[in-house]
């Protein structure tokens, strides 16, 4: 029964989760914590933190974690929990898979249609803005600390930001290498 509920809940989240991982998190919270009581608010906060700290899209991370925790909290054994995390992850992806395949097929067919070209003429400059906004929204004390709370961490963060930006922009360094180097710097300095 809980598997069916997991499927329905996460299918809905995948289907109506517009606007990326953070928008999905609020849907997950209202469904999983407030409606179904699968997790406590504290457990949910842990999931958010873990999702942000581990690699992978936040939507997938939280679905996997909630699927496991919900089933185990309901008193089932560990193997059922693993099944639950599989179920939640699969359900959150399924709507995207169906929709994106339909849209891809449509776009590939009408790529050169004048109306589609007009629409994309408006979209392309906006995407530049979207990307800029994504970067600006992440310039927070959560990510950089601040001169008042922790000046050492703040200036190191600024230095790592500059190092990564220049490494990517000017020297075309591999992004994965840059992430690993900054992780090592964090381990040693912060």
């Amino acid at each position, binding site marked *: 029964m809980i598997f069916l509920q997991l499927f329905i809940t996460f299918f809905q989240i*995948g*289907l109506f*989760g*517009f*606007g*990326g991982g*953070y928008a999905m998190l609020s849907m997950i919270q209202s469904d999983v914590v407030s409606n179904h009581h699968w997790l406590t608010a504290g457990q949910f906060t*842990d999931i958010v933190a873990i999702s942000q*700290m*581990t*690699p*992978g*899209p936040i939507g*997938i991370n939280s679905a*996997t*974690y909630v699927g*496991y*925790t919900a089933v185990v909290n309901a008193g089932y054994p560990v193997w059922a929990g693993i099944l639950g*995390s*599989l179920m939640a*992850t699969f359900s959150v*992806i399924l709507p*995207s*898979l169906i929709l*994106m395949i339909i849209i*891809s*097929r449509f*776009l*590939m067919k009408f790529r050169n249609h004048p*109306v589609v*070209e007009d*629409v*994309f*003429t*408006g*979209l*392309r400059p*906006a*995407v*530049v*803005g*979207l*990307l800029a*906004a*994504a*970067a600006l929204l*992440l310039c927070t004390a959560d990510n950089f*600390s601040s001169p008042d709370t922790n000046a050492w961490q703040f200036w190191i*963060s600024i230095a*790592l930001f500059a190092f*990564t*930006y220049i490494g990517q922009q000017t020297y075309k360094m591999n*992004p994965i290498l840059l*992430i690993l180097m900054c*992780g*090592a*710097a*964090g*381990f040693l300095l*912060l």
Partner: protein
Amino acid sequence: MWQLFTTFFRIGLFTIGGGYAMIPLIEQKVVDEKHWLSRQELMDLMAVAQSCPGVFAVNIGIFIGYKLRKTPGALACTIGTALPSFVIILAIALFFQQFRHYSAVESIFRGIRPAVVALIAAPVFRMAKTARICRYNVWIPVVSALAIWLLGFSPVYVVILAGLGGYTYGQLMK
């Protein structure tokens, strides 16, 4: 097919802090190295993936996979993107619920987070070139960014408005 899977497995493994963080990785791997897509196609795809529901990173993977190898390709990319997260999170849920309280883990991520922000900022000007931003249309990205950043607009609305704007402009020019 195996290449699609391993490429997106790597992308999934190093996408930290949300879907946009994977853009520079995709740019480097898929556009510059493998030439599976042009930079302009990637931008179009970002607009589409952003206005569709679901996980941004997965949407992008599905589209690229489908373009190259139809449905099996889409599946290979999806599984590739999702698998690293799935395994890591499951391991954390099973074995170390206390994961985020280890001080070494916290230090490493304090170093990684500013880098992720820089990696998202870096493609902005490259993308601006591809979108042929000039002084006549530079207001579009500026207004979009400010509306999302300062006014809290949803990117979905920005995409819809920009698409409608492009369509209307095209009709008026006829």
